[in-house]
């Protein structure tokens, strides 16, 4: 039972990191019908921005919640700028092109970030500085919970609540939902669609940047190719929840994080990376719209 709860907490914190990435995927897909392959690499950049900010400001000398907030903010702003640039330079000129061209460009952007990251940061793993520590462990009998994981979970939940508020309560959020319904109709109603799309990219990228810093807290080894697998898994999570659906992405990511941790915890660590893809094929076979997705009909 103790072991079970331990896995549960691990799974939830892993799942919440996937969720932050998956949200960006699902929002961009909702508005552009594009799988933004570069999204996982934005998450990698977030981790590196967090690391360099911490080094520059010597945040690891007095680890505190404030230090963590500074690193988080820096990564989120940096990634928002990167997200904006990616959309502006690579995706916007192709808005009227065939879908396959957009997809190929997305793959190109992703590889560009990965390999220029290797040139820039070096291919070897870097150590993410400890900018936040709690010495005291939550323990209840034999059950010990790593406080960092609780922190990750807490921050993710806060960010998701903020996102939910933006999407459902603000003018920009309403514009995003309108644009994802139909670009043409939205622009007829006076919504600046291009700017809304930029905003969506920035929002999604900021969340991915936050995920990068949070993952640096619990798994402090970061490298330029670290975004590939989490990126793909977050996409699977988004499909699992119904791509384009914000709540679905969170639920899908938590489910994926949990099932992965339980798989590893109960003895099948080699199949960890295969699980996500097996799940993806199963969903595509039996429930292609995901758990929460509604069926889209194609209109001519």
């Amino acid at each position: 039972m103790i072991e079970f709860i331990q896995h549960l907490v691990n799974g939830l914190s892993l799942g919440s990191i996937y969720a932050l990435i998956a949200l960006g995927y699902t929002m961009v897909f909702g508005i552009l019908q594009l799988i933004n392959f570069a999204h996982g690499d934005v998450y990698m950049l977030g981790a590196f921005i967090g690391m360099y900010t911490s080094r520059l400001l010597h945040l690891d000398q007095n680890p505190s919640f404030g230090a963590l907030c500074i690193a988080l903010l820096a990564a989120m702003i940096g990634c928002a700028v990167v997200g904006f640039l990616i959309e502006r330079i690579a995706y916007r000129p192709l808005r009227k092109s065939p879908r396959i061209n957009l997809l190929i460009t997305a793959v190109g952007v992703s590889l560009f970030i990965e390999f220029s990251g290797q040139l820039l940061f070096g291919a070897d793993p870097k150590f993410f500085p400890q900018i936040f520590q709690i010495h005291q462990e939550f323990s209840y009998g034999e059950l010990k919970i790593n406080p960092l994981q609780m922190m990750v979970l807490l921050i993710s939940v806060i960010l998701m609540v903020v996102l939910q508020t933006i999407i459902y309560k603000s003018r920009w959020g309403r514009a995003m939902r309108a644009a994802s319904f139909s670009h043409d109709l939205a622009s007829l109603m006076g919504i600046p669609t291009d700017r809304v799309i930029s905003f969506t990219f920035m929002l999604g990228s900021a969340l991915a940047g936050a995920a990068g810093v949070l993952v640096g807290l619990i798994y402090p080894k970061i490298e330029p190719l670290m975004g590939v697998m989490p990126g793909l898994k977050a996409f699977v999570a988004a499909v699992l929840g119904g791509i384009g659906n914000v709540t679905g992405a969170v639920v899908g990511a938590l489910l994926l994080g949990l099932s992965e941790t339980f798989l590893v915890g109960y003895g099948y660590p080699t199949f960890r990376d295969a699980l996500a893809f097996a799940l993806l094929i199963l969903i595509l076979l039996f429930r292609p719209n995901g758990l929460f997705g509604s069926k889209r009909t194609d209109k001519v």
Partner: protein
Amino acid sequence: MKPVRFGFKTLWPWLAALVAVVIMHFVLTDRLDAYFFTILMYAGINAILASSLNLVSGFTGQFSMGHAGFMSVGGYFSAYITTVVLASHADLFADPVLAPLVFGGILVASGLVSAGMGYLVGLPSLRLKGDYLAIVTLGFGEIIRVVVLNVDTIGGARGMAGIPALSSFAWVYGTLVITLFVVWRLIHSQQGRAFLAVREDEIAAEAMGVNTTSAKVRAFATGAFFAGVAGALFAHYLRYLNPATFDFNRSFEVIIMVVLGGMGSLTGSVVAAIFLTILKELLRPLQELTRLDFRMVIYSVLLIVLMLNRPNGLFGTREVSDFFRKKRKGAAS
């Protein structure tokens, strides 16, 4: 695209190409410098990969990122047959009559295994509209790599060594001619019309009675077939296989060949495959000098710039034969 009738008039260039390959085989083998010969062989194998991927991406409009995975399936399957199953029949490969027959059979078999995999992977993802194939094939490539790493009979992480050298110039370029012929015939047939229709507009194609899922899966499985054959040729030329040979970067190389040459142009695929194979060798000294891997950065920038400024690649959808045809028309008028 105009229909092409099947007959001697359209067949003779292909037969001539096959004859030329056989002649070249006897001229070049053992006479050309070993380094250049290796580049030539890789260029041929890459051209097979690129033209088969072009059938999927260029002519049917489906984006696959797992060509290296299928190559790996074909390569490992054929290597398993020749080094493990037929280990005690090594004299078979010395026999001048039987060896080509056996190797030809193995090539077809590895293509079929690979196509079967393609069918299994393609069906769930191609049934849907949208770009799920890209992610699923990417995942498939990863899964294949993990599986190969964990199976000890085919070498695991050590790689598989001691594969007999059965590929030759004639095998590689003969297969290339056959691949080009099959893809060319296919896209000018009724089946191919369905492929092109799916590329142009999936909904309209469906409305016209094309079974879009079946068309996509057929194109994809055919592409996987030739990728498997290319993998088998590669395995029996290099004589060593390693799971890292078939990583995502390999798939990406093939994608960039197709895009650079022009999605929908077989000529383009062949030209781009040869060009990029040579470019890779030219970049090697630079890479050794700086100890940095510039190649992938160059490729990715090339891909983005191509998509933004010249999405049709070098050739667009034109072929070599179009240039001849235009000339003839000009002479008549």
